[in-house]
């Protein structure tokens, strides 16, 4: 059955429509692959039984000729999307037993299109992390291992369960969310595609909030075409999210064709950062050559405030998180501490026991930068920096149509290798956070292997609401890179 699970989303869609196999057969193959892959800890909640029920319903619709865009296709959902009747934890003890009575708009869109839910994937607690090591439900293990090594590596984060699930063929595609790189970085270090759409393209309704001005849902897939297919269904204009933008969702799959002749690809010189391994920069150069060979024009551009993006992010994101996470107080839902003296004690102990170390650290940073006397020095200054960073991009896009950069400063690293110093972990997002600060779309495409045999990605950054062009250039990178590698399935032997 391994041929079934290694299909792309587009291949499976076409095969199901051609009645080559049923959704039940396909879903059953994934359910058993997921059971065998438990050593990876990619899922917090497996929903095998429900998946088969959904598959049967899809098969009935197919028989009746009612075929949705994703009819019968099994997907994995990051456990940050609320799913009605299915536990949604945000990988936190504080939401450990939370069962939503409503559905997020993005997942509702997927089910309306006929998709099947295989389960809820692991992540960093409240999506705060770059290695999936802050989850209250344990680390996720990257399906990839370095050449001649048995060392467990991280799958990136925060959408580490989703990235591992896609790379290990445990689903056709997965949803992720990206606040500072949480879709693109894990996709890059697992050799798969990750797309963060423009802020406002996918509804945030029903997605557990981390930093509301930065959060955006997006697809994690095996191919660029699959990302186009997923985005078409995930994206919508939603009255339940006031920041959802009223722009029609185009047919991204159709718009993939046409090539990149004459397109201007910007290379931001500030993304050449000291300490980044030579192989990363070499791959970047190669990527530019690939696009040039397909008729694009390569132009050097400048984003002068690049080095301020990461510190700006670490003010803005914790500030928003500290207000968003104020709702977890042990009263209306979520974890409640026992043996408390009074209501304040209930709040403090429930939060102290319910939140993990990284979440607590970010709540404290956020509370500090928003507190009286520090607001102007930190938060207000950071919001001004965002304006300057946005101007950088506006000026760059006068000279080019898309930007090409590396996705990460290196390949996947060992479990526990970067947990002792929070700053070192934060630096994993150095190439990805900028686009969140300015709301632009970005995509990571697998582009090659590192010296030790681990996947590396290239990132493309597009203009607001022009995911179509972004995907077209991503397809050009994918075609040239011809990345056909997959991890050895060491967990299921």
């Amino acid at each position, binding site marked *: 059955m391994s041929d079934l699970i290694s299909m792309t989303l587009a291949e499976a869609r076409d095969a199901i429509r051609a009645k080559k196999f049923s959704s039940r057969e396909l879903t059953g193959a994934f359910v058993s692959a997921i059971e065998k892959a438990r050593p990876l800890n990619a899922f917090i909640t497996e929903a095998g039984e429900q998946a088969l029920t959904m598959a049967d319903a899809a098969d009935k619709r197919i028989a009746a000729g009612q075929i949705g865009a994703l009819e019968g296709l099994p997907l994995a959902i990051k456990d940050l999307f609320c799913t009605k009747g299915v536990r949604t934890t945000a990988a936190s003890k504080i939401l450990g037993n939370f*069962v939503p009575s409503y559905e997020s708009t993005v997942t509702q869109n997927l089910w309306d299109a006929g998709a099947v839910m295989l389960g809820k994937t692991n992540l960093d607690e409240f999506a705060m992390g770059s290695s999936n090591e802050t989850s209250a439900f344990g680390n996720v293990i990257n399906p990839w291992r370095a050449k001649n090594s048995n060392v467990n590596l991280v799958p990136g984060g925060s959408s580490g369960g989703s990235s591992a699930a896609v790379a290990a063929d445990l689903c056709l595609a997965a949803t992720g969310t990206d606040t500072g790189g949480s879709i693109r970085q894990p996709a890059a270090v697992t050799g798969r595609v990750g797309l963060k759409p423009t802020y406002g393209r996918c509804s945030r309704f029903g997605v557990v909030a981390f930093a509301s001005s930065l959060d955006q849902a997006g697809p994690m897939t095996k191919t660029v075409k699959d990302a186009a297919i997923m985005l078409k269904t995930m994206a919508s204009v939603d009255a339940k999210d006031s920041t959802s933008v009223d722009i029609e969702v185009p047919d991204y799959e159709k718009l993939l064709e046409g090539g990149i002749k004459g397109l201007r690809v910007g290379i931001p010189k500030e993304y050449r950062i000291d300490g980044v391994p030579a192989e990363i920069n070499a791959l970047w150069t190669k990527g530019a050559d690939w696009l040039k060979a397909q008729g694009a024009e390569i132009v050097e551009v400048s984003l002068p405030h690049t080095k301020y993006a990461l510190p700006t992010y*670490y003010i803005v994101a914790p500030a928003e998180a500290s207000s968003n996470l104020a709702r977890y107080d042990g*009263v209306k839902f979520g974890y*409640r501490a026992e043996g408390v003296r*009074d209501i304040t004690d209930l709040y403090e102990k429930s939060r102290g026991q319910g939140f993990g170390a990284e979440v607590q650290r970010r709540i*404290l940073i956020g509370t500090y930068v928003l*507190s009286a006397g520090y607001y102007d020095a930190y938060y207000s*200054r950071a919001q001004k920096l965002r*304006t*300057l960073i946005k101007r950088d991009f506006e000026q760059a896009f006068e000279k080019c149509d898309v930007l090409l950069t590396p996705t990460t400063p290196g390949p996947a690293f060992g479990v526990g290798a970067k947990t002792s110093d929070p700053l070192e972990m934060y630096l994993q997002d150095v190439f990805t956070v900028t686009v969140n600060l300015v709301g632009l779309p970005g995509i990571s495409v697998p582009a090659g292997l590192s010296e030790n045999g681990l996947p590396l990605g290239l990132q493309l950054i597009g203009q607001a609401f022009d995911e179509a062009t972004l995907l077209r250039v991503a397809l050009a990178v994918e075609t040239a890179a011809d990345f056909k590698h997959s991890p050895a399935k060491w967990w299921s032997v």
Partner: protein
Amino acid sequence: MSVDKDTVRRIAKLARLAVPESRLEPMASELNGIFQWVEMLGEVNVEGVPAMTSVVAQKLKWRKDQVTDGNQADALMINAPGGEDHFFVVPKVVE
């Protein structure tokens, strides 16, 4: 500016977060590391630069001021850690 143990205690209180005494000192040192790094933002001249309020140029949507949902008391209580009938139970707040 540097964060000490007392500052961590104060912001933990503001954040309604019980941080054990033994964690105050290590947390202060972690936060200091982060704030020292963030200090680099001080070198940028932001004179006259407006603070960003929205990443996407759009007007916030308006809708009619009317009830769109409601009567969900049962659904709201499903996840309540201390719930009785349609009430959230908390420790006594009035002596």
